[in-house]
């Protein structure tokens, strides 16, 4: 695997979010606070999931990190740089809920798209895309067009494309949201393997509790209206080698799931009395 060996600042966090708010002002209506004073750090190589009900601002937070949107207050640093600088320097790869492949390009050409845009030579592009096709298990589909692939395969192409420039940070916005449960679990296993290979930090938005627990080093539980971080739960399911299929039936996994669920719905002793908004 080729990868960027030196980080811009050696001890910088992969992501550092400080006091970030995002307020959407809709014409002639009250402003909507999507995020309110959010603080979050992600260490290099760490897998962090953002989980919460719809409208809790988890996607907004990811879009802010990706510089697809600007915060109303607070600062966001990616490897010690502004989000804008990090985007222009291509310090992160991104995958959306929709695969978002260009239908007029072959699978291989889709994976090569970011390399092509950044003037990487043909030979190097070719060898990198071959490598990535192997990584996501689509060697035989390089010359196919996206419409000839299943949803799960398209999403794997999108992940390969996100990895094309060996980023040290992967941003993923519900990338498996549209997949069926079986495909989804297989994709999760593959993602763990890919992360172990590339040692990239991941910020992963999801609304599936088991998915967050299975994948993450830490799960960030968010609450809606206004979007805030309710709690950050460390998950200890062991390294990628231990985290195979059987862990889904392990007590540590169930403990993690219960912990996240309780945090999402409000803890039993304090939550019920105050009528926490449960979704």
């Amino acid at each position, binding site marked *: 695997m080729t990868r960027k060996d030196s980080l811009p600042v050696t001890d910088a966090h992969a992501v550092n979010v400080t006091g970030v708010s995002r307020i959407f002002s809709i014409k002639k209506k009250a402003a909507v606070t999507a995020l309110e004073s959010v603080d979050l750090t992600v260490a290099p190589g760490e897998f962090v999931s953002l989980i919460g009900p719809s409208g809790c601002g988890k996607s907004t937070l990811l879009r802010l990190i990706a510089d697809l949107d600007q915060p109303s207050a607070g600062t966001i640093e990616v490897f010690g740089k502004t989000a804008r600088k990090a985007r222009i320097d*291509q310090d992160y790869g991104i995958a959306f809920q929709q695969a*978002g492949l*260009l*239908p007029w390009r072959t699978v291989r050409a889709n994976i090569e798209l970011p390399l092509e*845009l950044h003037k990487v030579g043909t030979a190097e592009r070719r060898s990198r895309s071959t490598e990535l096709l192997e990584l996501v298990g689509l060697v035989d589909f390089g010359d196919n067009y996206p*419409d000839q692939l299943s949803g799960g395969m398209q999403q794997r192409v999108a992940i390969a494309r996100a990895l094309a420039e060996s980023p040290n940070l992967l941003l993923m916005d519900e990338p498996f949201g549209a997949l069926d449960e079986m495909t989804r679990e297989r994709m999760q296993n593959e993602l763990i393997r890919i992360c172990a290979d590339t040692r990239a930090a991941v910020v992963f938005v999801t609304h599936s509790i088991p998915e967050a627990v299975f994948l993450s080093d830490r799960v960030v539980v968010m609450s809606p209206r206004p979007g805030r971080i309710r709690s950050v739960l460390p998950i200890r399911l062991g390294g990628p080698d231990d985290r195979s299929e059987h862990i889904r039936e392990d007590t540590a996994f169930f403990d993690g799931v219960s912990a996240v669920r309780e945090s999402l719905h409000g803890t039993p002793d304090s939550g019920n009395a105050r009528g926490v908004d449960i979704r």
Partner: protein
Amino acid sequence: MRLHFISARMVVAPLLLGVAVLALWQLAVVALEIKPFVLPGPVAIADQFFGNIDNVWTASAVTGWNALVGLVLGAVAGVLLATLAAVWAVLDELSVPIVAALAVIPIVALAPVLYTMYGAGAETARQIIAAIAVFIPVYLNSLRGFRQVRPVHRELMHVYAASGVQTARNVTLPSALPFIFTGLRIASSLAVISALIAEYFGGPVGGLGKSITSAASSSNYSLAWAYVLGSILVGLVFYLVTLGLEKLVSRHRPTP
């Protein structure tokens, strides 16, 4: 293109129907003794068509060339202006009433005016008429095409810090291409029709329109119909070529 899905039945059935209609037509003309100035029979028309194949060919070449020049000019202008209107929304808003006005003008009615402007001996007027007729569908469809870029693709290009030119080449233009070619397909028939009808209003002789009127005025009705057949064939060629191009660029996209 999925040609192999076209079964023999889909080809044979309309062919059989066509032959049956032609046979009935010929039968009716003979049995009911229909006069040629009302309706000549298909045999007489075919006879005139193949007897005057050189003249029909020359006339088709004249009209076809005018239509082609108009099609290219109108298409280039339509795509260019649609590009500008897609970039500057102001231009789009300004152009709405003008395009609406152009769309309701019976464009061939401009023919006599243009003939006086460019001289009755030149084909220019006919080509301009074809170009104006082509411009409207190409402009409207292209503009719509440029708005088809999916948000996820636009965000992807933003994430990759792609330049304006890169975004246009890799996302905007490919998204718009099927729409541009749909506009061209509609425009191709319009180009032939306008170039041909413009000939009715003056200008040099030699085209299909002039040939139809002169054959009819000298009471050679079968020959007039032979030229009509030539016009149909020219229109069909224009339509099929642009349809083929449209299918070619739309291969790997979900139909809009």
